[in-house]
């Protein structure tokens, strides 16, 4: 089960760090924020998948490990719903 060695994942993680740093010089505003958070999400996904064993975990374990993501989404969605709908009235 050595589909991607930890070293390869590490190289990709460092490349993504370089990418997010480079992007911060070119992008700004909401696009910059979106790209920065997207890159951070990909990096975290790699860490969870390869270093935190989700690759080999059962479905139940994956739900336990990622359940907080759902709650974070609910938290952010309810707060940003306010900001995003202010102009509509």
């Amino acid at each position, binding site marked *: 089960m050595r589909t991607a060695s*930890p*070293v390869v*994942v*590490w190289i990709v*993680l*460092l490349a993504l*760090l370089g990418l*997010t*740093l480079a992007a*911060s*010089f070119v*992008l*700004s*505003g909401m696009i*910059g*924020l979106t790209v*920065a*958070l997207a*890159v*951070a999400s990909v*990096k*975290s996904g790699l*860490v*969870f998948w*390869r*270093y*935190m*064993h989700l690759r080999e*975990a*059962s479905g*139940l*374990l994956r739900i*336990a*490990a990622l*359940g*907080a*993501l759902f*709650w*974070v989404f609910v*938290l*952010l969605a309810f*707060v*940003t719903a306010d*900001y995003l709908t202010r102009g509509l009235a």
Partner: protein
Amino acid sequence: MADRVREPYAAPGQQREAAMMGMYIFLASETMLFSGLFLVALHLRLEHAPEVVAASRQMHYFIGAANTALLLTSSLLVALAVEAAREGRARPAVLATAILLGLGFLALKAVEYRMEYAEGILPLPGAVTEFSSPARHAFMNLYLIATALHAVHLSIGLGLLATLAVRLLRGTLPLPERSIVMVNAGLYWHLVDVIWIFLYPVFYLAR
């Protein structure tokens, strides 16, 4: 190969899965703890974008990048040590190197705090600070709280890793039977890394 099966488990795999699930659920609570801080960061960014960008531009983003690289590398070493443990090999030197990188992170963070303190932008109690707007002050307050809370977690992780490195050296951690202990300590260490992966762009790279 597998650990001795204890009550109430029927099989080694089930026992191992239960141990990991306990850790994942604990880490979920840590995620929620930090997500409250990220929510405040998002609120500041949406409501006070120019002030947040100005405050973020003052940050020493190369120190932050170097610290990200240190944590990513320490995570790699922990992952390698855990993988070796599961195959029955003790790798105390690999774990010790990961600890050194973690200490390096804390040292760099201390240097950075010191620089910010000298620049008058670190809102420690009793510090002389000057902010051009309340939003910038709030941003730096949040930065201090979030990074300090992260540093506390990192220190706990270092304690865990150090304990395991000593046990590996003394041979008091039977491998691969008790490798689940390494797995769970590794999970904690990686989550501390993941939190920093988000802290870095949110505080240092807002443009």
